[in-house]
Protein backbone atom coordinates (compact mmCIF):
# COMPACT_ATOMS: atom_id res chain seq x y z
CA UNK A 1 0.00 0.00 0.00
CA UNK A 2 2.94 2.32 -0.62
CA UNK A 3 1.92 5.90 -1.21
CA UNK A 4 -1.40 5.69 0.65
CA UNK A 5 -1.81 8.39 3.29
CA UNK A 6 -3.01 7.51 6.75
CA UNK A 7 -4.42 10.04 9.21
CA UNK A 8 -2.68 10.08 12.57
CA UNK A 9 -4.33 11.80 15.55
CA UNK A 10 -2.68 12.64 18.87
CA UNK A 11 -4.21 13.40 22.25
CA UNK A 12 -3.29 14.83 25.65
CA UNK A 13 0.44 15.15 26.33
CA UNK A 14 1.32 13.13 23.26
CA UNK A 15 -0.41 15.86 21.22
CA UNK A 16 1.36 18.60 23.16
CA UNK A 17 4.80 17.03 22.81
CA UNK A 18 4.54 16.24 19.09
CA UNK A 19 3.16 19.76 18.58
CA UNK A 20 0.11 18.89 16.47
CA UNK A 21 -3.24 17.21 16.90
CA UNK A 22 -3.25 15.41 13.56
CA UNK A 23 -1.39 14.86 10.33
CA UNK A 24 -1.53 12.70 7.22
CA UNK A 25 1.52 10.60 6.46
CA UNK A 26 2.63 7.75 4.27
CA UNK A 27 3.86 4.92 6.48
CA UNK A 28 7.10 3.19 5.42
CA UNK A 29 6.54 -0.31 4.09
CA UNK A 30 8.57 -1.93 6.85
CA UNK A 31 6.25 -0.52 9.54
CA UNK A 32 3.84 -3.41 9.95
CA UNK A 33 3.01 -3.62 13.68
CA UNK A 34 1.89 -0.97 16.15
CA UNK A 35 5.25 -1.16 17.94
CA UNK A 36 7.05 -0.68 14.60
CA UNK A 37 4.99 2.47 14.12
CA UNK A 38 5.78 3.87 17.58
CA UNK A 39 9.52 3.23 17.15
CA UNK A 40 9.51 4.77 13.68
CA UNK A 41 7.60 7.86 14.85
CA UNK A 42 9.92 8.22 17.84
CA UNK A 43 12.96 8.88 15.62
CA UNK A 44 11.20 11.49 13.48
CA UNK A 45 12.08 14.49 15.65
CA UNK A 46 12.64 15.70 19.22
CA UNK A 47 8.89 16.17 19.82
CA UNK A 48 8.13 12.56 18.94
CA UNK A 49 11.17 11.41 20.88
CA UNK A 50 9.76 13.16 23.98
CA UNK A 51 6.19 11.96 23.41
CA UNK A 52 7.18 8.34 22.80
CA UNK A 53 10.10 8.11 25.24
CA UNK A 54 8.39 5.14 26.91
CA UNK A 55 6.49 3.53 24.02
CA UNK A 56 5.25 0.66 26.23
CA UNK A 57 2.87 3.00 28.10
CA UNK A 58 1.46 4.62 24.96
CA UNK A 59 -2.01 3.53 23.80
CA UNK A 60 -2.93 3.11 20.16
CA UNK A 61 -6.31 2.83 18.47
CA UNK A 62 -6.85 1.79 14.84
CA UNK A 63 -10.08 3.29 13.51
CA UNK A 64 -11.10 3.99 17.12
CA UNK A 65 -10.46 0.44 18.38
CA UNK A 66 -7.84 -0.19 21.07
CA UNK A 67 -5.09 -2.52 19.87
CA UNK A 68 -2.09 -4.23 21.42
CA UNK A 69 1.42 -3.17 20.45
CA UNK A 70 1.91 -6.50 18.72
CA UNK A 71 -1.11 -5.95 16.45
CA UNK A 72 -0.68 -5.66 12.67
CA UNK A 73 -1.61 -2.20 11.51
CA UNK A 74 -3.30 -3.22 8.27
CA UNK A 75 -4.87 -0.32 6.37
CA UNK A 76 -6.83 1.85 8.83
CA UNK A 77 -8.20 5.25 7.88
CA UNK A 78 -7.17 6.68 11.26
CA UNK A 79 -4.54 5.82 13.84
CA UNK A 80 -4.81 7.47 17.27
CA UNK A 81 -1.88 7.71 19.66
CA UNK A 82 -2.38 8.80 23.26
CA UNK A 83 -1.40 8.31 26.93
CA UNK A 84 -3.34 6.07 29.36
CA UNK A 85 -6.86 7.43 29.84
CA UNK A 86 -7.85 9.42 32.92
CA UNK A 87 -11.58 9.97 32.46
CA UNK A 88 -14.42 9.15 34.83
Amino acid at each position, binding site marked *: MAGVETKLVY*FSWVRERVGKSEEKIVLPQDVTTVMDLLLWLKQRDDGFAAALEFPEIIRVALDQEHVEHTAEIGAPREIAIFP*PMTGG
Partner: protein
Amino acid sequence: MSAFGVTVRVQSEDFDQAAETTLLTKGRTDIGAVATFSGLCRGEGETLKALELEHYPGMAESEIEAAANAAVKRWPIDGLLVIHRYGRITPGEQIVLVIATSKHRDAAFDGARYVMDFLKTNAPFWKKEHRVDGQEASWVDAREEDEQATKRWK
Protein backbone atom coordinates in the same frame (compact mmCIF):
# COMPACT_ATOMS: atom_id res chain seq x y z
CA MET B 1 -24.42 1.00 18.34
CA SER B 2 -26.15 0.49 21.65
CA ALA B 3 -28.42 -2.18 23.06
CA PHE B 4 -32.02 -1.47 23.99
CA GLY B 5 -32.11 0.44 27.24
CA VAL B 6 -28.59 1.84 26.89
CA THR B 7 -28.11 5.59 26.50
CA VAL B 8 -24.68 7.21 26.23
CA ARG B 9 -24.03 10.91 25.95
CA VAL B 10 -20.69 12.73 25.71
CA GLN B 11 -21.27 16.45 26.10
CA SER B 12 -19.75 19.65 27.43
CA GLU B 13 -22.95 20.80 29.18
CA ASP B 14 -23.80 19.89 32.76
CA PHE B 15 -26.52 17.28 33.40
CA ASP B 16 -29.46 16.91 35.78
CA GLN B 17 -29.29 13.66 37.73
CA ALA B 18 -32.87 13.93 38.99
CA ALA B 19 -34.30 14.52 35.51
CA GLU B 20 -32.34 11.57 34.11
CA THR B 21 -33.53 9.31 36.93
CA THR B 22 -37.12 10.34 36.24
CA LEU B 23 -36.72 9.51 32.54
CA LEU B 24 -35.54 6.00 33.45
CA THR B 25 -38.18 5.25 36.07
CA LYS B 26 -41.31 7.34 35.47
CA GLY B 27 -44.50 5.39 34.94
CA ARG B 28 -42.70 2.08 35.42
CA THR B 29 -43.62 -0.41 38.13
CA ASP B 30 -41.18 -3.17 37.13
CA ILE B 31 -38.04 -1.44 38.46
CA GLY B 32 -37.07 -2.25 42.04
CA ALA B 33 -33.57 -0.83 42.16
CA VAL B 34 -31.81 2.29 40.89
CA ALA B 35 -28.05 2.55 41.41
CA THR B 36 -26.51 5.89 40.55
CA PHE B 37 -22.96 7.10 40.51
CA SER B 38 -21.86 10.64 39.94
CA GLY B 39 -18.28 11.79 39.75
CA LEU B 40 -17.49 15.34 40.81
CA CYS B 41 -14.48 17.57 40.25
CA ARG B 42 -12.47 17.86 43.49
CA GLY B 43 -10.74 21.06 44.48
CA GLU B 44 -7.70 19.29 45.98
CA GLY B 45 -7.65 21.53 49.03
CA GLU B 46 -8.51 24.61 46.97
CA THR B 47 -5.35 24.25 44.88
CA LEU B 48 -7.26 23.30 41.73
CA LYS B 49 -8.73 26.06 39.60
CA ALA B 50 -10.28 23.86 36.92
CA LEU B 51 -10.02 20.56 35.09
CA GLU B 52 -9.77 20.54 31.34
CA LEU B 53 -11.15 17.32 29.95
CA GLU B 54 -9.94 16.36 26.50
CA HIS B 55 -11.61 13.49 24.65
CA TYR B 56 -11.47 11.56 21.39
CA PRO B 57 -14.85 12.21 19.79
CA GLY B 58 -16.48 9.10 18.42
CA MET B 59 -14.24 6.67 20.23
CA ALA B 60 -15.29 8.13 23.60
CA GLU B 61 -18.91 7.29 22.86
CA SER B 62 -18.16 3.88 21.38
CA GLU B 63 -15.95 2.77 24.30
CA ILE B 64 -18.61 3.80 26.84
CA GLU B 65 -21.28 2.06 24.78
CA ALA B 66 -19.15 -1.09 24.65
CA ALA B 67 -18.89 -1.08 28.46
CA ALA B 68 -22.60 -0.37 28.87
CA ASN B 69 -23.59 -3.08 26.39
CA ALA B 70 -21.32 -5.57 28.17
CA ALA B 71 -22.99 -4.70 31.48
CA VAL B 72 -26.49 -5.15 30.06
CA LYS B 73 -25.44 -8.53 28.67
CA ARG B 74 -23.91 -9.65 31.96
CA TRP B 75 -26.65 -8.59 34.39
CA PRO B 76 -30.45 -8.27 34.17
CA ILE B 77 -30.46 -4.49 33.76
CA ASP B 78 -33.50 -2.58 32.52
CA GLY B 79 -31.98 0.80 31.77
CA LEU B 80 -28.44 2.11 31.74
CA LEU B 81 -27.57 5.74 31.22
CA VAL B 82 -24.05 7.15 31.01
CA ILE B 83 -23.18 10.82 30.58
CA HIS B 84 -19.57 12.00 30.45
CA ARG B 85 -18.64 15.64 30.10
CA TYR B 86 -15.63 17.18 28.39
CA GLY B 87 -14.20 20.68 28.38
CA ARG B 88 -13.57 22.96 31.34
CA ILE B 89 -14.99 21.81 34.68
CA THR B 90 -14.51 23.60 38.00
CA PRO B 91 -14.35 22.13 41.55
CA GLY B 92 -17.72 20.90 42.79
CA GLU B 93 -19.07 20.43 39.26
CA GLN B 94 -20.27 17.11 37.90
CA ILE B 95 -18.09 15.15 35.45
CA VAL B 96 -19.76 11.79 34.95
CA LEU B 97 -23.10 10.14 35.67
CA VAL B 98 -24.05 6.47 35.53
CA ILE B 99 -27.55 5.23 36.36
CA ALA B 100 -28.47 1.53 36.23
CA THR B 101 -32.01 0.30 36.86
CA SER B 102 -33.04 -3.27 37.49
CA LYS B 103 -35.54 -5.49 39.24
CA HIS B 104 -32.96 -6.29 41.93
CA ARG B 105 -30.23 -4.31 43.63
CA ASP B 106 -27.25 -6.55 42.83
CA ALA B 107 -27.64 -6.08 39.07
CA ALA B 108 -28.08 -2.32 39.46
CA PHE B 109 -25.02 -1.94 41.72
CA ASP B 110 -22.82 -4.26 39.64
CA GLY B 111 -23.87 -2.65 36.36
CA ALA B 112 -23.16 0.90 37.50
CA ARG B 113 -19.81 0.00 39.01
CA TYR B 114 -18.70 -2.09 36.05
CA VAL B 115 -19.38 0.79 33.67
CA MET B 116 -17.48 3.23 35.91
CA ASP B 117 -14.49 0.89 36.17
CA PHE B 118 -14.28 0.31 32.41
CA LEU B 119 -14.88 3.92 31.60
CA LYS B 120 -11.91 4.90 33.79
CA THR B 121 -9.44 2.67 31.97
CA ASN B 122 -10.94 2.38 28.47
CA ALA B 123 -12.76 5.56 27.50
CA PRO B 124 -10.46 8.09 25.78
CA PHE B 125 -10.65 11.08 28.12
CA TRP B 126 -7.69 12.90 29.63
CA LYS B 127 -7.73 15.36 32.51
CA LYS B 128 -5.48 18.39 32.70
CA GLU B 129 -5.28 20.27 35.98
CA HIS B 130 -5.13 24.05 36.06
CA ARG B 131 -3.80 25.33 39.39
CA VAL B 132 -4.97 28.27 41.46
CA ASP B 133 -1.35 29.40 41.95
CA GLY B 134 -0.87 29.81 38.19
CA GLN B 135 1.71 27.01 38.03
CA GLU B 136 1.91 25.26 34.67
CA ALA B 137 -1.10 23.04 34.02
CA SER B 138 -0.32 19.33 34.22
CA TRP B 139 -1.91 16.13 32.97
CA VAL B 140 -3.33 13.76 35.56
CA ASP B 141 -1.48 10.43 35.73
CA ALA B 142 -3.43 7.21 35.23
CA ARG B 143 -3.88 5.35 38.52
CA GLU B 144 -2.72 1.77 38.95
CA GLU B 145 -5.77 1.25 41.23
CA ASP B 146 -8.02 1.93 38.25
CA GLU B 147 -6.29 -0.79 36.22
CA GLN B 148 -6.78 -3.19 39.13
CA ALA B 149 -10.45 -2.19 39.44
CA THR B 150 -11.09 -3.13 35.81
CA LYS B 151 -9.36 -6.48 36.29
CA ARG B 152 -11.72 -7.53 39.10
CA TRP B 153 -14.50 -8.06 36.54
CA LYS B 154 -12.63 -10.68 34.49
